[in-house]
């Protein structure tokens, strides 16, 4: 009897330890970023870092470390991807949850999951050889490696998240709502768009935010598809260099413990904080959604 109780305690302790390890890793990453970012931030100053747009560590004169152009670039590519992925994702989720026949659903759901498994480098490849030339032809630009290209590819990456989580949210809407709507002579599309989507709104918002978190942090695809010109973006047709691309390109070649090195960590820290806050908010919104439907 006593041995059994001890066993239970040990197992309980092990699970607790697992949870603890995740938190420790998260805190460790944050502290590492902070520790390496602070010396640079002290030297450059938060204002110049966040409010000026010139990132030029290799300048002949004084090197500049303004991250605003990167922030704007990341923001543009992310918002662009959401403009594509949100309507498409919600529409697909609505179709799959309420309109599609069971056969179609059986085929489409695994396809969505496979889409999530495509390596980002493969998507970047498609950006260079397929989307880029197509965009160049359509818009008359030189090579089509620009913010739109990145937005399109990131939309593809965010879609699976948005579709499957939105579908879960739609499925958690009580059946009685759909029944009431159908009994009034509404068709399936009217029912899902006018009753179920509003009822599942908070869950769908959470799904879109998680998709957004995915898009912001994505590196390889945007690195390959956006051209990476270190300039302040002038529009969606201009080549952009996002925060993730900057870190990926420069960190490999930077001398350790220089200002440049520290400033790359600062960029990483900002990125970490942004995605952390987005994930946190989407988590809170989703929990609220689940509670409301209970």
């Amino acid at each position: 009897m006593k041995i059994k109780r001890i066993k239970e305690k040990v197992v309980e302790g092990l699970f607790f330890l697992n949870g603890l390890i995740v938190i420790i890793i998260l805190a460790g990453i944050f502290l590492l970023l902070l520790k390496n970012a602070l010396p640079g931030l002290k030297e450059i100053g938060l204002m110049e870092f966040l409010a000026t747009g010139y990132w030029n560590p290799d300048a002949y004169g004084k090197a500049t470390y303004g991250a605003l152009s990167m922030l704007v670039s990341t923001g543009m590519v992310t918002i662009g991807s959401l403009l594509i992925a949100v309507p498409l994702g919600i529409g697909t989720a609505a179709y799959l949850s309420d309109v599609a026949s069971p056969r179609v659903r059986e085929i489409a759901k695994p396809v969505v999951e496979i889409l999530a498994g495509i390596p980002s480098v493969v998507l970047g490849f498609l950006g260079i050889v397929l989307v880029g030339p197509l965009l160049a032809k359509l818009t008359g630009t030189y090579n089509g490696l620009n913010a739109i290209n990145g937005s399109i590819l990131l939309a593809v990456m965010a879609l699976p998240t948005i579709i499957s989580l939105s579908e879960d949210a739609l499925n958690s809407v009580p059946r009685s709502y759909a029944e009431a709507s159908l009994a009034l002579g509404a068709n399936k599309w009217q029912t899902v768009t006018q009753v179920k989507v509003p009822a599942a709104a908070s869950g769908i918002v959470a799904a879109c935010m998680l998709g957004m978190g995915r898009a912001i942090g994505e590196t390889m695809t945007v690195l390959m598809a956006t051209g990476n010109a270190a300039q302040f973006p002038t529009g969606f047709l201009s080549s952009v260099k996002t925060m993730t691309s900057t870190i990926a390109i420069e960190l490999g070649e930077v001398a350790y413990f220089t200002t440049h090195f520290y400033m790359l960590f600062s960029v990483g820290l900002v990125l970490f904080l942004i995605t952390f806050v987005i994930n946190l908010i989407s988590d809170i919104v989703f929990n609220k959604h689940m509670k409301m439907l209970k």
Partner: protein
Amino acid sequence: MPLAKVKIKISDFNFYYGQVKVIKGVSVEMLAKNVTSIIGPSGCGKSTLLRCFNRMNDLIPGARAEGRAEIEGVDILGPQVDVVELRKRVGMVFQKPNPFPKSIFDNVAYGLRVNDITDRLIIEKRVEQSLRSAALWDEVKDRLKDNALNLSGGQQQRLCVARALAVEPEILLMDEPASALDPIATARIEELIVELKKHYTIVIVTHNMQQAARISDHTAFLMQGELVEYGKTSDIFTKPRKKLTEDYITGRFG
């Protein structure tokens, strides 16, 4: 007494969930502007039968109907039937009040909007009429913008009646509409049903035999998917022809 018109007619009607036969050879004629109640023990197929009249069972995979079912002599089972059109003519009120998480006004207006009525004045007029018909107008007229989920259970159910009436159906199906309500709210719903039969054909499923006796003109007693007895409510409750009916209404089982 003028000859009442037959509104709903089913004959040799069978219904299956997959392989299981839940309605067995039922034939009934229900009269226009009458209240017909369907009574019977739990699981006898009352709700299933009711949901055949607006094809709500279509939503259940593997559900299948056999035989004939007509509204005003027109078949409602065949694949050529426009289910959306049918459901506009045959409204439904469910067991548990199920207003949408929208405003009171939008709840009633919903059925109009999905049927492409966009004129604001017409919608406002129809919403008021429907709420009046459902005896709810006086209680909510000053707070039409409030969320419908803030209403009491009884009010919510009358709102659901108003919502169904707004699309101007000919038939109103009610699936135990008072089972989730307290006695006072139940009494109000019953008054409402008696009032509504002036304009609508009402079919109500109920667990409560006194309720059937109080409000319905005709009663169908269903057991294990078979129609045991059907006739004038007064006859069913005072001089049932079948022993089984008598046993059920006197509370010997059920």
